[in-house]
């Protein structure tokens, strides 16, 4: 046994336990949410990477219920904001109000908004004005809120799960690119399969809903978040992730013909970060301690699909960014040769 073969056995135990417990939480959520196995896993990945997710799907697919269930199983404080055109930033982050203290003196006190939670459901986020949407920016990026020159930290873990309806676009304000880029994953909530829909009908029209066990605590999640960042990625795998992101840029070498035709701007560096970070979670969930090419590929669609900005031609022809990314994956060699 050489020097490289010495390590702390506890770290192996910790890593394996983390993976096991995350799987348990996923299973528990699955007791309430029929189908959407990948979606649940991706939300957990997002949370463990300290990221936020934008869920896109038509109304009635259980997005809100899913998010509430995640908060319940993970034992996190959950709040919900229904975004409307007249929603103001203060309605999200809170505001200073004049109140009397215990001694009867009038004092200005900060009244926390719904953002001060751990799982924030921003329902139909594209219905609020950009000004209100941008109120979330600082919270999402910095995990704190600044009001009247004073900064208030948000309790970790903090995850924004925003939803938007891809069909009904009238009276909506599409999220600006800067805001979109803040979302770690963009997840698509698909219509349930036949059997899943049958199960949904059965569960929701029967007796009392299932009582869910709290599988993880906020403390667990924070420690897992730290552990996951320690999972290494080899230089070649990281290089692969970077090349994938580069290939989404029409002017870069390795870009596919489709990217050159239909993409105006490729993914931001956050895309590459997302690939590796999510890969780390996938590796740990798979009881491995190094990121593989498969992990990177698995994260590619949710991490990159909202970071590709289509050109006019792409928009006009209704090009799906998922197809572009699949093609990029197809043509990008693992080893770079």
């Amino acid at each position, binding site marked *: 046994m050489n020097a490289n073969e010495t390590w702390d056995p506890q770290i192996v135990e910790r890593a394996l336990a983390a993976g096991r417990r995350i799987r348990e939480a996923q299973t528990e959520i699955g007791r309430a949410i029929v189908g959407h196995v990948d979606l649940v896993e991706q939300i957990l990945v997002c949370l463990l990477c300290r990221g936020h997710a934008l869920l896109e799907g038509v109304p009635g697919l259980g997005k809100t219920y899913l998010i509430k269930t995640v908060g319940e199983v993970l034992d996190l404080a959950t709040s919900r904001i229904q975004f409307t055109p007249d929603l103001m930033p203060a309605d999200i982050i809170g505001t200073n109000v004049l109140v009397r203290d215990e001694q009867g003196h009038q004092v200005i006190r900060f009244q926390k908004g719904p953002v001060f939670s751990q799982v924030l459901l921003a329902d139909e986020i594209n219905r609020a004005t950009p000004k209100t949407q941008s109120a979330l920016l600082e919270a999402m990026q910095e995990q704190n809120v600044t009001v009247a020159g004073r900064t208030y930290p948000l309790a970790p873990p903090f995850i924004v799960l925003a939803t938007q309806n891809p069909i009904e676009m009238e009276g909506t304000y599409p999220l600006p690119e800067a805001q979109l880029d803040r979302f770690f994953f963009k997840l698509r909530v698909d219509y349930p399969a036949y059997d899943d829909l049958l199960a949904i009908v059965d569960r929701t029209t029967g007796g009392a809903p299932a009582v869910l066990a709290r599988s993880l605590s906020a403390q667990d999640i924070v420690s897992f978040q730290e552990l996951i960042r*320690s999972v290494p990625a080899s230089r070649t795998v990281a290089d692969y992730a970077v090349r994938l992101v580069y290939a989404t840029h029409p002017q870069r070498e390795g870009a596919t013909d489709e990217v050159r035709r239909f993409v105006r701007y490729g993914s931001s560096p956050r895309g590459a970060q997302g690939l590796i970070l999510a890969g780390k979670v996938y590796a740990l969930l798979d009881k*491995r301690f190094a990121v593989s090419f498969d992990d990177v590929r698995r994260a590619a669609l949710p991490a990159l699909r909202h970071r590709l900005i289509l050109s006019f031609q792409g928009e006009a022809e209704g090009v799906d960014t998922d197809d572009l990314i699949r093609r990029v994956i197809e043509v990008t060699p693992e080893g770079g*040769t």
Partner: protein
Amino acid sequence: MREPGVDLARLVHTLELRWRGVLLRRSIVDALSVSLAVSLAVLLIRAAYALTFGPGTLVLLNASALVVALLAAAIARREPAQFLIDADRVYGLKSLLLSGYEFADAASARAFDDQRSQFERIVAARAQRMSGGIDPRRVYPARTPRRIAITGALATAVATVLLLDASGLFASAAAPYAETGLLLEDAGRRLAARAERDEELLDLAREFARLSELLRGDQIDRDEARRRVDSLSDRVEQQLRNLERTAPFDHDETELLPDAEAAIRGALQAGMSESDVVELFVRMRSEGETIPDFVEALEEAHERRPDTAFGLDEERLRELMEQLSRPQPPDDATDLTEELRESQRVLEQTGAGLIELTKGDDRQIGEALDSGVGRDAAPQRTQADEVPADDAASTRGDPGDGLEGGTAAAETGMDGDFRRPEGGPIFRELRGVVTEGTIMEIIIRDVPAEATSGLSEQERAIVIERVVEEAVARENPPPQLRSLVRNYFLRLAGTGANDERE
């Protein structure tokens, strides 16, 4: 049996060796498939176009392909990581070997914090253990290259063609001028027999033999062969001219010229046509008859004619007498002349045989070419002896005897009865490649056989020959085509060539 302690670096090396071996095999198959395809094409072209190269060319071609394949496999470069990526993929190890290989690097391990370093060590150790179970043959299996079937089929085809070639099936195609070569050899041998001590003629005979050998052995390309045929043709022609100039003069016959003049004058006055006189003269001269024989024959001929008075052209008579007074070459010189002319004909046939016709040419020109190549070559030697004397004279086109006679007859204005069709609708167009870059075009505007003539058969033959000679002189075809063109027109006119072919 693999060693249990094979580490990742050694695994990379083993994988690389295996990969190179597989690459070499694939490169060889690919290169051979290309070189064999080229070889097959070359063999087929060789058979079709009688190109001259030996099997060494094919060996060189395929050997070069092998060398290229070896070089390609030797200089191919790959990152070490790529071998481990392949192994990971085949064994479903999710990049374990690759990550372990990279994490095993101490510098890489030290660059990260403790927790990460611990993970890296774990991964490296797992990869190290796993590397012992990696079989390079599974990573790079020795699959049969996809092109092996094509390569095998090509190799079989090449071998078949070579075997058929060796068995002589393609002999006529590979050496298409073998028959012509034999004719040349024969002509050279006969020329050598006549040459006696004439070094120039002996050298000419040797040249015939040399060209014959090259053609039979298919050791000369067509252009070079054509050049040599032209050169030999020129030399034979020069020999013929020399012979004519140096022919001995028989003084005895000049004394008989007055008798001949009287006989001709009598024949013409008795109504014998000038063309008949000329024809008789030409025939008898070609047969080596003497003036008394000619006078006798003339008298016999005009006695069979009705006594119709014709005006006697004194000028024309004078010309005939000039011809008559020309020296009769001795027998041995005549034989040599005949031999040289025969050689000339063989050369013309050889030259015609070297002509490549473009695809889709009319069958008629093919037959015309055939009539001058190989098939007619052997019989033609005997035709000179077998055909009637007048035909022999007319087809020979000898300027020393027959041609001048024909020309003299034509100058009397008889060609007015035979009109060579000009203009009008094109009956047939034939195109043939004479030499590279030269295309001969023959346009037949009408069928000459349909023309009418009030002349007798003999007169017509002379006139036709004159027309043909004029046409040949005007169109100036290459030497090797002259006989061909001449025979072709004669056959169209329904004279000599038809007889020759029969």
